[in-house]
């Protein structure tokens, strides 16, 4: 078995990466703007439903039921999909999933495929594997196009190019045959439409992920905004869907919970523009060949961890990213994984399954334990609890604390209370604190241990306190 690509090979540990991105004021500006907007919108979208808490508890319970009976529901899903003309494949890890997909694409004699944004395929590095096999994978989600054409990495679950502002996007799109003539979002969207239209109409094979797969009915659900999903799910002759095993839902009825929780938590809308649901193959309508690849890649070992398994309830809404003070300051790429932010800090190391890997082991420290993520999570994942649990495991795995782990413990500890923020603020700024080079001698242990390297201090643009007050009221 090869290395799990859920974390990016060669990524620096979180504190090192965070130190770098904290110096990038453009990045921080872009992120602050975007996350502030979405935070406010999410709150009003959620406030509209007076049964939000009941929905969250139902969502949590349905997902726990899934985890408790995962084998049963997967077998049920398999037979329902098969009955309706689909073919189900099982993949133990990224390598196996990539091989299955590549073989299926080759069977169709295709050298180009269109893709709907999917976390599972990003997690397994499918595009790279297809490229190695001579197949060009074309991302069709606007944000993914920005990432792909910018030769960049994603930094957010829902909006992988959240770190880019409109002016930067216009520059990236300049390489399109028909580049946008302004940085107005409408013009940028229009350019993407023109760029992708021919690709959609000529593609023979599409690849998607799945937000949900209903065991009872074999229904696969893809939630999206732009219509690129509908294009991929409708036009090509062959559709290959890669779905993490934990995405299965027991009953059709369960969708009534998740189709309320997901849109309001992710794009902060009453409903996202498009949701497609299909079951196997529909004669004369849409793809006439359908393959479902059920992916483990670290999920069953995560399931074995009593505390950590709740991360498998995640519906990838990204609400926890948008409220996270650490994410907002460091950006998503600092996490070195397709899963950044609070969910990434607990999911990526568990899927990677190797706490001796310095980078993966540093992720559970990428948090202040402030609890905002738990409050917004639509399936009530107690992220702080899992973080604490994983930190203990990291310590156990290593036998001793590494400087990185120590550095992050210190950051986490300082983030942990208002009083300590203020102390840290007196001693320097948060930015300097994370920069490891600040003068922290006035801080009590463990902050005082965090002085092992001497980097040029990053000059703060704004004190943490005023930032905190302004953003969290």
């Amino acid at each position, binding site marked *: 078995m090869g290395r799990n690509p859920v974390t990016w090979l060669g990524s620096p540990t979180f504190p090192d990466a965070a130190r770098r991105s904290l110096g990038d004021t453009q990045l921080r500006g872009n992120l602050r703007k975007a*996350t502030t907007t979405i935070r406010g919108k999410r709150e009003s979208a959620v406030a509209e439903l*007076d*049964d939000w808490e*009941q*929905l969250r*508890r*139902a969502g949590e*319970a349905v997902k*726990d*039921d899934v*985890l*408790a*009976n995962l*084998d049963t529901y*997967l*077998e049920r899903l398999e037979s329902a999909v098969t009955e*309706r003309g689909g073919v189900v494949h*099982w993949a*133990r890890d990224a390598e196996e999933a990539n091989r299955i997909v590549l073989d299926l694409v080759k069977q169709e004699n295709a050298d180009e495929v269109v893709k709907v944004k999917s976390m599972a395929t990003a997690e397994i590095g499918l595009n790279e594997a297809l490229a190695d096999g001579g197949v060009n994978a074309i991302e069709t989600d*606007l944000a993914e196009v920005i990432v792909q054409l910018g030769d960049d990495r994603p930094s957010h679950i*829902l*909006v992988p190019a*959240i770190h880019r502002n409109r002016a930067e996007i216009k520059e990236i799109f300049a390489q399109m045959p028909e580049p946008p003539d302004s940085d107005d*979002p*409408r013009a940028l*969207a229009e350019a993407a*439409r023109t760029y992708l*239209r021919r690709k959609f*109409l000529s593609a023979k094979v599409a690849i998607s992920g799945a937000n949900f797969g209903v065991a009872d*009915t074999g229904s696969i659900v893809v939630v999206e*905004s*732009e*219509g690129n999903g*509908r*294009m991929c799910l409708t*036009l090509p002759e062959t559709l290959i869907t890669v779905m993490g095993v934990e995405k299965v839902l027991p009953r059709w*009825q369960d969708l*009534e*919970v998740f*189709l309320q929780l997901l*849109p309001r938590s992710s*794009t902060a*809308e*009453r*409903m996202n*523009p*498009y*949701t*497609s649901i299909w*079951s196997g193959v*529909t004669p*004369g*309508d*849409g793809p006439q060949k359908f393959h479902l690849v*059920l992916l*483990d890649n670290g999920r*069953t*070992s995560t*399931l*074995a961890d009593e505390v950590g398994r709740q991360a498998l309830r995640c519906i990838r809404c990204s609400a926890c990213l948008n409220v996270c003070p650490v994410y907002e300051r460091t950006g998503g790429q600092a996490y070195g994984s397709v899963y950044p932010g609070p969910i990434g800090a607990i999911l990526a190391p568990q899927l990677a399954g190797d706490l001796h890997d310095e980078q993966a082991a540093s992720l559970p420290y990428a948090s202040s334990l402030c609890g905002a993520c738990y409050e917004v999570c639509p399936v009530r994942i107690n992220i702080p609890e899992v973080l604490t649990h994983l930190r203990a495991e990291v310590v156990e795995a290593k036998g001793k604390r590494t400087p990185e782990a120590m550095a992050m413990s210190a950051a986490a500890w300082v983030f942990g209370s208002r009083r300590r923020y203020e102390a840290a603020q007196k001693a320097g700024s948060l930015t300097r604190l994370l920069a490891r080079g600040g003068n922290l001698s006035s801080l009590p242990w463990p902050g005082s241990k965090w002085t092992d390297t001497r980097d040029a201090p990053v000059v703060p643009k704004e004190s943490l306190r005023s930032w905190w007050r302004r953003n969290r009221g």
Partner: protein
Amino acid sequence: MASARDEILGRIRAVDRPVSPQVPRDYQRQRHADDPVALLAERIADYQATVHRAATRELPYRIAERLDGRGTIVAPPDVPGEWRVPGVSWLSDDPPLGVSDLEEAAGVLSGCAVAIAETGTIVLDAGRAQGRRVLTLVPDYHLCVVHADQIVVSVPEAIERLDPAGPLTFISGPSATSDIELDRVEGVHGPRTLEVLLVH
């Protein structure tokens, strides 16, 4: 060597798993709205789609009004005869149209299966007057007829009404993206103009 399937299922079965919880269904499965038609109209309009009302007997007239001067309009083979108003160049999906025909058409007229007032959502199930999914996807303009008895208030009511067997498409406003600075911009790949005719 065990198959991947057996191995994954085996790994799951080897785990000491929690007992499965009872799912609390104390959220609102039905919601009340004084005027579901008005609520639907308001919520659809929030997505920058246009909503027009029509009494049953004036529907053909309203359809003609919307489609006047637009050019070729695609129709699923089973749209009611009176919807195919004169003065419009109709393109029926019988025999099935090619994608290039759909590309060239100015728009599409369809019915729907269910509409959800609270979220401003129209659901197509490929049933009567809706046709294949591609018909309502490729043309840039979509006129959708919604009858009052197809409207429910909440998402749970819609899920209950829908048949999971058919391919379903939930449509809430015209295609849009939030990918640029997390702000909603209308009009990417799906129909950029969505108009809804509410018949009551």
